[in-house]
């Protein structure tokens, strides 16, 4: 086996890989969020943003494929770690409780595999709803492009989809609440001093990202924009 394969199969390597792919996905999510915010600047802004992305051609595909690879790998690692965990304790405790204190066990960390799988399902529905859907055409400065603004407005007037989206974004926040801090720990970027600081920053970041994503559908649904 090559060095890379051995490394990636080891317990530490898997965790480092989870952290690296996780950070990659978080960076994507941040870019995606910033893109979403263009909605608030009006139809021209968001449609042009989407159009510009599509004009990037091969680079866009490279990014997309890279993202897909990160995503699939991240999911696979998460699930395999979860399977491993079940194997490592065949007989569980009759009573189990967290000691608290230094422990990072909470709803967020204990549900990583669940929130992760729900996010996976969401990604499929999300792609179906937006990426693979037919768009109306908008014309800005004489250029024809997808009317993303119109599609967003239409989707988020549906209460069911809006609620679904909001719930998933809360779950995303939970996933990141543990995931972002955890990535730093996994990559070894941690000391006794920085640990609580990074843990707090991760919490703030998770809240900002979740609120950022939730802001758009809520605003559309309640007609705030």
């Amino acid at each position: 086996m090559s060095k890379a394969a051995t490394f990636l199969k080891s317990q530490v390597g898997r965790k480092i890989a989870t952290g690296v792919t996780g950070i990659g996905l978080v960076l994507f999510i941040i870019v995606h969020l910033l893109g979403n915010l263009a909605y608030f600047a009006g139809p021209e802004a968001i449609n042009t943003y989407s159009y510009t992305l599509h004009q990037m051609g091969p680079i866009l595909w490279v990014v997309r494929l890279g993202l897909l690879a990160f995503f699939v790998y991240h999911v696979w690692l998460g699930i395999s770690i979860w399977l491993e965990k079940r194997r490592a304790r065949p007989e569980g405790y009759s009573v189990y409780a967290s000691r608290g204190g230094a422990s990072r066990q909470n709803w967020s960390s204990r549900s990583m595999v669940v929130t992760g799988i729900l996010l996976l399902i969401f990604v499929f529905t999300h792609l179906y709803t937006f990426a693979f859907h037919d768009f109306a055409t908008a014309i800005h400065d004489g250029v024809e492009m997808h009317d993303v603004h119109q599609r967003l407005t239409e989707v988020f007037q549906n209460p069911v989809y809006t609620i679904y989206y909001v719930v998933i974004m809360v779950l995303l926040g939970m996933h990141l609440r543990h995931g972002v801090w955890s990535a730093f720990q996994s990559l070894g970027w941690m000391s006794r001093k920085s640990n609580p600081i990074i843990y707090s920053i991760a919490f703030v970041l998770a809240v900002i990202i979740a609120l950022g994503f939730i802001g758009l559908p809520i605003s559309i649904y309640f007609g705030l924009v």
Partner: protein
Amino acid sequence: MTIHLKIWRQKDRNTPGKLVDYTMDDVNPDMSFLEMLDWLNERLMNEGKEPIEFDHDCREGICGSCNLVLNGMAHGPHEATAVCQLHMRKYKDGDTIVVEPWRAKAFPMIKDLVVDRSAFDRIMTAGGYISINTGAPADANALPINKYDADLAFDYAACIGCGACVAACPNSSASLFTGAKISQLAHLPQGNPERKRRVVNMVDKMAEEGFGDCSNFAECEAVCPAEISITAIAEMRREYFNALSEIE
């Protein structure tokens, strides 16, 4: 005071175990938890019943023998305390305590509350040492070590090898135990020559023994009687990454 106990009884590895109820009416608040078990065992023997097996030795919190999960928490509810140092005054009259052994595939059951922790010794065998023969090493003061690193190395070296980290970890990971030894030796110049080989071998051994992956729950740090920080695990990962050249 009265304490209700539900204690895991299991004849051997191949016989299924179960929780058995015992009520202790004459618990003295100054008793340690293990002394209460001694007391119960004496009663059981006087009643002609088989006493409960549990591991214990120094009863000072340093040998790492005792290993009980009380109401779901390794070593019970108090931080920085091995269960042998837990006293009954911390409980209230009428409390119920569920007593279980460490549970992990890598710690096979022996009897009742006793499990086999030799996997830890095998992890140590994989590299938890500095290769120096008995003989005439250089003078102890020939190699100054800055106090920061020396103190940090001590923090990691304080591990008592009890296995609470594994028991409390939802994944049954041995990362805190392994990380502590790797990080101790990584902070000492003496540990430098074998630094890379050590981390690779010990990490591999840990997986081979059947411990789970670490998911950064940090429950291990919360239950560790020696208060070892999960920074040990972060350091182990750094060391592993830096040891890429040694991986085969």
